[in-house]
């Protein structure tokens, strides 16, 4: 067992941390919150210049071809800095989908341009009142002579105002899995986008699709249902999201610990009271456990092991932990922690976003149960008990 990052991986972490400190301090986040396009052009450009926008995209498609461990390292730093950019949605999620389901033309059109940062591709999966199940996807794609006609509404489409396209999940039949993915130009006739005011004041949009014609050439997997590929892309993405939660929680927790050392009450630092110290200790345990869970998930994926279960566990646990940590951070800061001027609230709001977007706890718990039930029945089928 060896849990140390390689020298290259440590360099990657240091570089990402430096970029975040230089281009995405919390002061910048405060200026960007609730604005459009909702991320810093300087930061995004710095990431592009460093090759980060092609981090996990294959070399042959113009990326750096790095693995899940590197993705985790980078996103842990993004999480720590609360540094927001289209990296997750475009360079991780959309790029993964296009590279596993795109034909040659689609790969050539999109992957090098996502890798070089020329294109931003968003994702439209969630819908109004919809959960994370595929059966919640109601947006419909009707076959036409030249492609599909799309109708429906998508919520929480990140950076839609700047995105050159979005992968839209749409229904072609009544069976749960009858869901296809279409690359939709968000400037197409019939597409309208509207900023959705939200908890973390992130740049997420409602995308309304009214009889939008999409060419057959823009259908991923040649218009075949692609539930499996969508889930696989999400399971990989979970590692990045869980890493963000760990990074954010570590920083929030460190802030709370520092505050507990200097803030005095009853003539002593509040960190000298067990009620405060124990609550910080509890959170430290959760953070350590989740840090290890995320590393294990990244390692399992890079090894080519079946990583879905450990990735789902990592995301479930890390996001719940982040939410709890951010709550404790506010509590330890007392009244000042409730103000907008203090930083704890920045973490508190983002923790909830991370938990509820991209597969929430309920959905992850169901996935975990399904996987375990399947594994245990396979085990008993092979008579390999224990």
């Amino acid at each position, binding site marked *: *067992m*060896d*849990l*140390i*990052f*390689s020298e290259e*991986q440590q360099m990657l972490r240091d570089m990402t941390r430096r970029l975040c400190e230089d281009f995405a301090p919390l002061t910048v986040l405060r200026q960007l919150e609730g604005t459009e396009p909702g991320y810093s052009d300087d930061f995004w450009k710095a990431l592009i210049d460093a090759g980060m926008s092609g981090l996990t995209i294959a070399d042959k498609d113009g990326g750096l071809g790095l693995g899940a*461990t590197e993705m985790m390292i980078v996103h842990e730093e993004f999480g720590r800095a609360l540094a927001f950019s289209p990296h997750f949605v475009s360079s991780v999620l959309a790029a993964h989908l296009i590279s596993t389901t795109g034909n040659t033309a689609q790969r050539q059109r999109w992957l090098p341009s996502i890798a070089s940062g020329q294109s931003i591709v968003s994702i439209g999966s969630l819908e109004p009142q919809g959960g994370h199940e595929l059966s919640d996807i109601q947006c419909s794609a009707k076959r036409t002579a030249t492609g599909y006609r799309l109708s429906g509404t998508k919520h929480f489409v990140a950076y839609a105002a700047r995105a050159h396209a979005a992968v839209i999940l749409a229904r072609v039949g009544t069976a749960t899995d009858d869901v296809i993915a279409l690359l939709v130009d968000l400037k197409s006739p019939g597409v309208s986008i509207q900023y959705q005011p939200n908890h973390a004041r992130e740049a997420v949009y409602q995308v309304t699709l009214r009889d939008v014609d999409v060419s057959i050439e823009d259908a991923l997997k040649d218009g075949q249902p692609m539930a499996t590929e969508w889930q696989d892309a999400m399971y990989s993405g979970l590692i990045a999201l869980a890493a963000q939660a760990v990074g954010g929680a570590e920083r929030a927790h460190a802030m709370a*610990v520092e505050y*507990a*050392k200097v803030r005095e009450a009853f003539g*002593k*630092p509040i*960190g*000298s*009271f*067990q009620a405060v*110290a*124990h609550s*910080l*200790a*509890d959170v*430290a*345990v959760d953070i*350590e*456990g*989740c840090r*290890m*869970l995320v*590393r*294990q998930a*990244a*390692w*399992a994926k890079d090894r080519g092991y079946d990583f879905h279960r*450990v990735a789902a*566990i990592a995301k*479930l*646990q890390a996001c719940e932990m982040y939410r709890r940590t951010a709550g404790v951070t506010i509590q330890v800061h007392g009244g000042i922690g409730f103000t907008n001027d203090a930083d704890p609230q920045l973490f508190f709001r983002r923790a909830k976003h991370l938990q509820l977007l991209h597969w929430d706890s309920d959905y*992850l*718990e*169901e996935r*975990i*149960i399904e996987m*375990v*039930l399947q594994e*245990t*029945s396979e085990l008993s089928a092979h008579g390999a008990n*224990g």
Partner: protein
Amino acid sequence: MDFDFSADEKRFIEEVRAFLREQALLPDAADVMAPNRDSDSMLSDTPARRRFNREMAKRGYLGMSWPKEYGGSEKSGIYEYLLNEELARVGAPLIGKGIGIVGKTLIRHGSDKLKTEFLPQIRNAEIEFALGYSEPGAGSDLASLKLKAERSGDGWLFNGQKIWNTSAHFADWYWLAARTDTQVAKHKGISLFLVPMNQKGITVSAIHTLGEHRTNHVFLDNVWVHDDYRVGELNKGWTYISEALDFERFTIYPFSPLEAKLEQMWTHVKSTQRNGKPLTAVPEIRRQMARLVAQVETAKMLQRSVIFSASQGGVPTVEASMCKLYTTALSQRLANTMIDILGADGLLHKSWPDAPDGGKWEWLYRSSALETIGAGTSEIQKNIIARRGLGLPLTN
């Protein structure tokens, strides 16, 4: 980064499993391997347990991490951890305080006489120890212990009492912490001794616990031992006790029993119907099980963090506290969840023939109450994490 054990470590795991499969076929196996009672077989003195321990010695499993000059094989501590994981999985006695606390402390600090006398006996599983640390007035605050050791001729005279001394009723020797100086700070006046148990003045009285095992109250009334049986330097006892705890930390909380319990829960949940519906279809049970799956995986990760830190040559004090704190609370949650799932049947004692899983859960629900208390309460673990891990200026 690699979460796998090395090829040699994996080979060792397989070797131990093969050994345990052989042992499971012996007529007395049920007395030594009782997964339904965790490793409780180590808490009572049975011929089967002594035979099993001697067999472990023959295989070279006792003292693997000891230096070669004392008959060890100088292997990394991870092998002792892996051995304990496999022993715990089948509910067999773990390698215990003789090899760990007593043996390792003697190797580091004991006189040649003590090493020569005790180390071979420990390695050959020919000797049993009881630890005499806690007192009725000194539990979490162990350093406030009062049992008095006074100079008397060539030796020491002990007066006082100890409590929670599991195995004191069958141990041959006592590993005793006593106050040798009352004029200095409390943790600077404690010394360690080895005392034979079979002498006048030592009274062992049973304490029966919620977990259905016996521990003991031990009274010492003018008990004498020669100064040769003082361990290491005078008044350094507290340092030795803490140090021994530190190098034991990564072998005392095996993860495998949690994993095995979760598997057993699944077996039950998958094969049981309620109102014509399998329990796996009950939303509340699905949710609880999913959470336990995630939490058991988290416990495994905290355990890995301890092993990794230890394998790097560090003393994983904070990691071990984290692991202990999380794992013991989880063990209680798991027992509580399962007994709730079983409903009223879950209340049946193991002596009832049809008690679910041989009464395992009813017993576990009781016995796990000790986990967050023994070997450092959860509150003490949080103090350790807060002080040593986070650097908080915690006063008690």
